[in-house]
């Protein structure tokens, strides 16, 4: 088995995959990549299975040393990346044994995905390799990487970099490309607790900017902007939470629930971000702004279908 060694860990670099589904009834958070589109593209570019684990790099990237030859890909947030001091062009590169891959200045987006041919071979916990830091579950020792960690890699496919074609990515699967200056535009469907709010409050959500505050992480983003009032004053009984849920505590300042959210919550949810826009949501950083717009279920499904079609096209092209 070969390893990569962590020279510098970066701000918060974690092992993530498509998430730990199927255990929420036991209180296990789903976790997984914040930007699942970029994770899937990264895996496709190195010929990995879509379920393979990769590194999620947050705001400030790591420096890693490779023990053997590997083909790697980087998607999502744009960083200046160098290999043994030389700038890397493009989303995929061959790394020779003994090389150091170094993330430098971040240009745009919040989270980059580094996929390595063969995937990260940390043990599966409850069917997934995703790290959930809060419950110390999965990933590498249930935590973000620290200097000196050695991450096990799966067997490399042995295919060479030159044999691989890097397809172009449309905006629906490259969320960072579609974001303008740290601003995310997210479509929502009202509910599940729409009756807790005036219809005017839901309408007022459109066209207003909320700021992603510094109290934001993989569990959720605390937003700051016009307060959303409750129509009735009573507790909501705890119930299952969903990713993209815009929950409104009594203060009226909404919280957007993300990958590491607790499985249950007791705040009313005014609206929920549609699946096709969750990848954009995953690329928001503190200081960015976000805007919501109501859409219909048909529009949401159309967007989800188009996104899936683009992802499948990349997966097919990368294999050929």
């Amino acid at each position, binding site marked *: 088995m070969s390893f990569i060694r962590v020279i510098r860990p970066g701000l918060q670099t974690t092992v993530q995959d498509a998430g730990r*589904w*199927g*255990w*929420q*009834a*036991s*209180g*296990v958070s*789903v976790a997984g990549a914040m930007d699942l589109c970029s994770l899937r593209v990264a895996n496709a570019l190195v010929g990995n299975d879509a379920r393979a684990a990769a590194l999620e790099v947050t705001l400030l990237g790591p420096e890693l040393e490779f023990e053997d030859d590997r083909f790697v890909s980087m998607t999502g947030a744009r960083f200046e990346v160098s290999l043994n001091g030389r700038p890397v062009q493009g989303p995929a590169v061959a790394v020779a044994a003994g090389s150091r891959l170094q993330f430098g200045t971040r240009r745009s987006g919040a989270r980059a995905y580094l996929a390595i041919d063969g995937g990260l071979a940390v043990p599966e*916990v*409850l069917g997934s390799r995703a790290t959930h830091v*809060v*419950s*110390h*579950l999965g990933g590498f020792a249930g935590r973000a990487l620290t200097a000196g960690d050695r991450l096990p890699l799966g067997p490399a496919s042995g295919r060479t970099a030159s044999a691989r074609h890097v397809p172009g990515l449309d905006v629906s699967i490259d969320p960072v490309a579609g974001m303008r200056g740290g601003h995310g535009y997210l479509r*929502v*469907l009202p*509910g*599940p*607790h*729409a009756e807790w709010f005036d219809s005017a409050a839901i309408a007022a959500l459109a066209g207003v900017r909320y700021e992603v505050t510094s109290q934001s992480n993989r569990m959720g983003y605390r937003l700051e902007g016009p307060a959303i009032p409750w129509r009735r004053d009573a507790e909501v*009984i*705890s*119930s*299952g*939470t*969903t990713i*993209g*849920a815009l929950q409104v505590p009594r203060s009226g300042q909404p919280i957007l629930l993300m990958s590491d959210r*607790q*499985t*249950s919550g007791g705040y009313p*949810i005014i609206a*929920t*971000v*549609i*699946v096709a826009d969750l990848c954009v949501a995953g690329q928001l950083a503190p200081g960015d702004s976000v805007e919501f717009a109501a859409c219909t*279920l048909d529009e*949401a*499904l159309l967007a*989800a*279908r188009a996104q*899936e079609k683009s992802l499948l096209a990349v997966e097919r092209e990368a294999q050929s």
Partner: protein
Amino acid sequence: VTRTIAAIAEAGDSALVAAFEERVDPAVNDLAVKLARRLHAARLDGIRDIVPAFHTVTVYFDPLVADRRELRAQLTVPLMSDAAVKPGAHHEILVRYEGEDLGEVARITGLSEQQIVEAHTAGTYRVFMLGFLPGFAYMGTLDPRIAVPRRTAPRTRVPAGAVAIAGQQTGIYPMESPGGWHLIGRTNVRPYDPDRDRPFMFSAGDTVRFAAE
């Protein structure tokens, strides 16, 4: 015999929430547990997770695979609220009642520590749902005499196996974590153990009794 049908709410394009009457009540929770079991048994395509809570079942699915109409039909089948349910598992938990907050709970309630232990061990509790942490079961309903609000200052570290109370609920911390409930005891029982055949000890609908060690 009352036939009860859940109300369905959309939670975005990849989840539906089936809700029964909005209250914390074993009979209502029973409907949620029953509905969740039914749905598991139906084995519909594209379902990612089925999560019963106090009065709801949230169903998570792949919007491009799942048949929403079929799913809605399954969620709105009338349930008999008095029908014999396959009972959940029963657990007897041994506790050393020496929690750090036993004195404070005594002060708040005006009961002696012994009376608090007697009240806690007298009840048969229902697991309403799991949440907060892997394996954490929300159990109720507590004797109102020992129902105390959460601590005003949550602890940054509560040890695994801590037996705690808050409001009309009780629970066992499955792992070391921050926590705001009052700690009344410790147990060797591990609600979550990844190396066990069944990693999670509790499921919604189970019953639990505590006994002093």
